[in-house]
């Protein structure tokens, strides 16, 4: 995956344009960064879903605080 290229900026810009909720956008950024970190690494699906649960849970907690 090409980092820091024009095309990634285009994707992020479009997502920001259509995501009106800053909390959801922040989480989108974190999820995509996580996907980039694990790109092409053999990680068990259950482990990834657990990590997603942690990230979504944190976003919900941040919102409640």
């Amino acid at each position: 995956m090409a980092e820091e290229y024009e095309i990634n900026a285009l994707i992020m810009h479009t997502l920001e344009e259509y995501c009106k909720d800053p909390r959801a956008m922040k989480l989108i950024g974190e999820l995509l960064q996580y996907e980039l970190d694990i790109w092409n690494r053999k990680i068990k699906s259950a482990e990834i879903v657990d990590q997603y649960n942690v990230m979504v849970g944190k976003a919900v907690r941040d919102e409640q605080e």
Partner: protein
Amino acid sequence: MKFAISSIEMTNYRQYKGTQKLRFTTDKSKNVTIISGRNGSGKSNILNAITWCLYGKEIHKKYDLVDADSMPIINSSELESLQNDERSFAEVKIHLETDAGDWLVSRRTEGGKDDSGELWFSESKLTVIHPVGNQDKIDTGEGTKRLINNILPDALESFFFIDGEQLREFFRVRSPEKVADAVDTVSQLELVYKASEHLDLLEKDLQRSIIAATPQLEKNHKQTEFVRSQIAQFKERASDIKRDRGSDTAALTAVNEYLRGHNLERVSTLQYKRELLEKEKAEQTQANSDSVLLRNQYLVKVAPFIFLKAPIEKTYALIMESVDKGELPSKIKEIFVRELIEEGRCICGNELSSDSDATATLVAFSKHLSLSELSDVAIVGKTTIEEILSEIQEFPQRIESMSIKIDKQESRLEEIRRDLDQIRDDLLGFDLEEINRYEARREELTTRIAEHNLLLAELDKKMREAQQILDDCRKQESIELAKHPKYDTLKRKLALLREIQNVFAKTESIIKGRIRQRVEQKTRDNFLTLIRKEGAFQNVTISDDYTVKVQHAHGFNVINDLSAGEYMILGLAFMSALTSISGFQAPVIIDTPLAKIDDIHRDYITTQLPHFLDGTQLILLVTPTEYDNDKKVKDNLSHYLLPSNDYMIHENETFTISEVTQRGNA
């Protein structure tokens, strides 16, 4: 990460027996490498060696060494020389210069003869040695592929390592699906797809944890699972149909081209006329469908007015009667009158004492205020009714003009159908077996493509219905969860992840559309830079459905009428657009880039391409006809070519073993 190839070492790889090493000097201004060899001498196998080493696959080969009947990767003379129970290997090593240091990528496969003389081969093994901190790290095994994918993903490899023949064919046998696939691949939405896939899994996990909470949730969960599996099936089916439609469209294009290029002039003229008519038919069908839709929308809007014409006219007459009698009071704002009374001062400055006549008048006014507000409604109503009455009056004329337009379109479509039938009859009238065969094939393909389109429309409808059910299930689930405070966090999690899924779903096609526009713009710029006939072409467009058009200076679409050289240039322009948009900086390697191209285009490509790639390493695998025998091409490339990057392939007398040497060192 940027990289260039500094050397390739092949040992017993296909026709290269022993070890052959090619060293490339990487230089931004002298960015061209030439490897010249006759057809069959092993040029393509140098390209194959690169893709096999990096990705474990060969561009020209469908089968790997596991296929017993195909030529093995290990050199056949080497295998032939083995005794029973002896083994050997084939290996390709590639040195890469990256902006993070030097890498060595190697792939090795072993093979030999067993005790009965039967050949055996092992799976190939990938090894990457790359710098991490101050040390070199060695990674082995297929998991190592991720390292290669970081410098150039497998999916993008075909935009950099190019077979010239396939590139020429890319737009000649045009298929919007192929263009869409390429744009899709370069879009790099994989991260978004993966995030979406993992959010789906998390949603399922979260739902599973509450199945048994209430019977309603359990029922809801079952329905959600069922609809999800239905949607997955629909998507898979749609993807299969699109693939089939793509190959049928390509086959139909080939049939059309055969008929258009037929040596009987009458046949080719009829086919040309047929293609123009089919284009017009498609446009008329679309226009007709739009007109019918517009008429239906108008009818839906105006029908209630027509139906209620009498009461509407009666209401309007009543309102007008009241207006004429002056019964509708003037508009007075309640708040303004009340404020005057409360403040006890008129706008003229006089005091409004509680017992004054003026105050009494205002109080009387305020009692009529409810009537005054009604007057607002009545005035709005009057205007609206006037608009409705005007619509009713215009209705006969508008509907007639719409119907006339639709009738004209339909009769033109009927004429076109008749003309197309006549052309088919005329072509069959030649009573030539080959034409009859092509006509039958054409009929079959056209019918199949229409069936594919119908099935896709049905699937699309089913998918939208299923998605609606899924949305309803989610709403129901949210209502049910709200009844149980202990599930509050879970409800919030589900809401958040679904919101993200909605953003992903909404933006996917928008992102692809924007990338398509960039590919279109860069392809156009590249094509108009590379093309020889300056001023002959105006534009290159890639429409929403990924149909590529090349616009002639006089406005005609000439995508079907380009020469081999022009197709090659269009292919190069498109691939260059994709490579630059992908953001990856890797060598461009083209096998037989100049074959079947006239000398003027050869001259133009070899003048422009190296400069055009802006210092990117360009390795050209050429035949002597393309390069050695063409002085102009050699002169052009000499500006970008260091002597150390000029190679020739030599074959032995029996054409079973090849050797690559630097030119002049043979």
